[in-house]
């Protein structure tokens, strides 16, 4: 008896370390099981499939990384909800299988077991973090990528998995019933699908949601975004930590240590919450006004060939692509337009931030073409139309009033260089048609085509390019005369003259 009493002290002194080793071992075991649960596996499979399907042709191959980082946030929520359900079921397993009594005699106290369950979410979080990294790296490696991503935005996906995993453990300790978490998921699903709607939230409360989307597709320079991404990541981390520590505390951990840690985590949450609620800073608001009103003071200009290209610093790698389009259009033009010096300037409307898609007004400055921040897809023929119309009409403001035979030349020079010009014509028209009248999109003011002009342009685009180009260059002066009619242009270019006079209805 005394021998045992004497032998006891070294065991108790060694116990804490062993017990933490047991926590880690249990966490590893539970983490592995969690990753292999059917709902989590399925959610991860769908998530991985979505990444591949989405990123293959997202942003038309020309992502701005300050937007690409945000697009990694929504999909992990599916994994997060699956993890929440499954981790909750793992915590409740001992009740369901009635093994709670056996655990009661083990050295691992309930508080530590809860901690192990919280830690078991980490492998799933790591998998999601890896998926986010893959998705963002893929975007960043695309040849057309520009801008910079924000670590705060990238952390949101993994942190929401951590948060929902912790919620799953907490609910298992608060309401040990298998039905509680599935019912919460219904509620969360509803919150996520509709939570970002402006009906439910004004400016600062929407930042309380884990994932905060934006309603606008406007692409802004990264320093004008005005999103408190870092504060939000801090808030999410604090919240996840608070929920996890609360679960551990309720699970039966020693009050002192866990309580202090919980207070620290809550403080972190509050700091993050206050930081993200601060709203738009005055500097950002002023920078947005400067970028919208006087972009020339913010931009760097590059000479390429005959023309000058001015862009916000993040977009300068894209100048070569723009210059390619300008060269194509000018090579199909004749007269003075062929050698005309252009000023291509990037212009944005940043004063309303990401709340709305504001249009950029047309300029009356001669030979200045506007280019937007988006590129790829339909933006290419739109810019091409912008270049061709300024070359022929002189400035952007005059383009809107153009309603005569010059439209034929504008559309042909804008689109003929494309590999599939008729498809480009379809894309650049608002209603995606190639017959009848329609509105044509351009970087600033839209143009309108009559049914007759559409007919002539389509015939020209279907003919071999070089033959038409020779005719266009030979008759350039007549074709770009403001008094030319569509019928006359068709005659000059040798295609069937459409019936009916020019009548613009745009």
């Amino acid at each position, binding site marked *: 008896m005394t021998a045992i009493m004497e032998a006891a002290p070294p065991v108790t002194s060694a116990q804490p370390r062993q017990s933490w080793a047991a926590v880690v071992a249990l966490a590893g075991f539970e983490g592995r*099981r969690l990753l292999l649960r059917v709902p989590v596996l399925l959610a991860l499979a769908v998530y991985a499939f979505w990444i591949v399907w989405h990123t293959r042709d997202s942003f038309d191959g020309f992502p701005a990384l300050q937007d690409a980082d945000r697009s990694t946030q929504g999909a992990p929520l599916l994994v997060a909800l699956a993890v929440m359900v*499954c981790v909750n079921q*793992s915590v409740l397993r001992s009740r369901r299988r009635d093994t709670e009594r056996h655990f009661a005699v083990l050295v691992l106290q309930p508080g530590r077991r809860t901690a192990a369950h919280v830690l078991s979410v980490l492998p799933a979080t790591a998998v999601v973090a890896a998926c986010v990294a893959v998705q963002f790296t893929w975007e960043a490696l695309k040849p057309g990528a520009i801008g910079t991503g924000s670590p705060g935005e990238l952390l949101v996906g993994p942190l929401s998995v951590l948060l929902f995993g912790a919620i799953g453990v907490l609910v298992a300790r608060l309401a040990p019933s298998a039905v509680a978490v599935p*019912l919460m998921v*219904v509620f969360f*699903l509803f919150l996520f699908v509709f939570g970002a709607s402006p009906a439910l939230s004004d400016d600062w409360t929407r930042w309380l949601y884990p994932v905060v989307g934006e309603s606008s597709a406007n692409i802004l320079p990264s320093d004008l975004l005005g999103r408190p991404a870092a504060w939000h990541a801090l808030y999410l981390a604090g919240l996840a930590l608070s929920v996890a520590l609360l679960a551990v505390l309720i699970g039966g951990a020693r009050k002192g240590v866990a309580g202090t840690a919980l207070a620290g985590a809550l403080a972190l949450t509050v700091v993050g919450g206050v930081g993200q609620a601060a709203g738009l800073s005055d500097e950002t608001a002023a920078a947005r006004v400067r970028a919208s009103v006087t972009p020339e003071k913010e931009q760097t200009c590059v000479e390429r060939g005959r023309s000058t290209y001015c862009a916000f610093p993040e977009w300068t790698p894209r100048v070569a692509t723009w210059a390619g389009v300008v060269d194509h259009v000018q090579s199909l033009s004749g007269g003075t337009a062929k050698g005309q010096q252009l000023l291509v300037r990037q212009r944005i409307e940043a004063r309303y931030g990401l709340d709305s898609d504001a249009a950029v007004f047309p300029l009356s400055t001669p030979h200045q073409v506007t280019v937007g921040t988006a590129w790829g897809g339909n933006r290419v023929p739109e810019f091409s139309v912008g270049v061709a119309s300024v070359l022929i009409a002189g400035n952007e403001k005059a383009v809107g009033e153009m309603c005569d035979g010059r439209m034929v030349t504008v559309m042909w020079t804008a689109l003929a260089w494309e590999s599939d010009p008729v498809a480009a014509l379809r894309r650049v028209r608002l209603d995606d048609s190639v017959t009848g009248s329609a509105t044509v999109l351009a970087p600033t003011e839209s143009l309108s085509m009559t049914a007759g002009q559409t007919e002539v342009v389509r015939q020209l685009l279907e003919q071999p390019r070089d033959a038409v180009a020779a005719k266009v260059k030979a008759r350039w002066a007549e074709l770009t005369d403001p008094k030319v009619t569509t019928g006359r242009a068709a005659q000059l270019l040798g295609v069937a003259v459409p019936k009916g006079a020019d009548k613009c209805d745009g």
Partner: protein
Amino acid sequence: MRRLSGVPAVWRALTPPVCRTVPWRALAAGGALGLLLAGMPRMVDGLNDDFYALNLLRAAALAFALSLAFLLDDPARHTTAAVPTPRPARQALRVALVAPVAALWWTAALLLVPAEVRPPTGDITLEAAATLVLTLAASATALRFAQEAEPGTAVAAGLLLTAALTMVLVPDRWAMFVYMKDEGWAASHDRWAMVLAMAVLVWGVCGPEPLRRRVRPVPSGA
């Protein structure tokens, strides 16, 4: 020992114990959340339009369906497999006990939605009925093909996953969750009717105890 003669006597004898095994607390929780969701258009100003009302009713039906996933759980299933009253009869009794409650609950949920934003009653009821019967069919399938006595947890998780994936993945051609002013509304309800019919069929097929059972150790799964 007195033999229970005739079918009504068996039902009378069975009703009280079966009534005790119905998971009333889970049903109450699911029903309460459902009513809370259905009542939101009245409580929150921004949600008072037909789009939110429609989807809130769907969420309410899903909440109730989740609690219904536990209805067929029977911890004593391995013992009761040998009793003379077959499993479909016992399951039918449970469902019969819950059906009036469910009907009452759904009526209340519908009435909670203001009349001017309420979706077409027949169509949305079809959706709810299909969801609930699908849940029961899934439970019956789990009971039929697994040795698990209480598959409710897994069925609930599966139902949630199905709902989420149907929302995210199903292409527009076969969309199930359609806005009532879209043209696909009628076609989607043909599909809902089909889901309901299939669920009834599957439930019917999976109801009886299997005559032969593969004997293998009970898996120690979660």
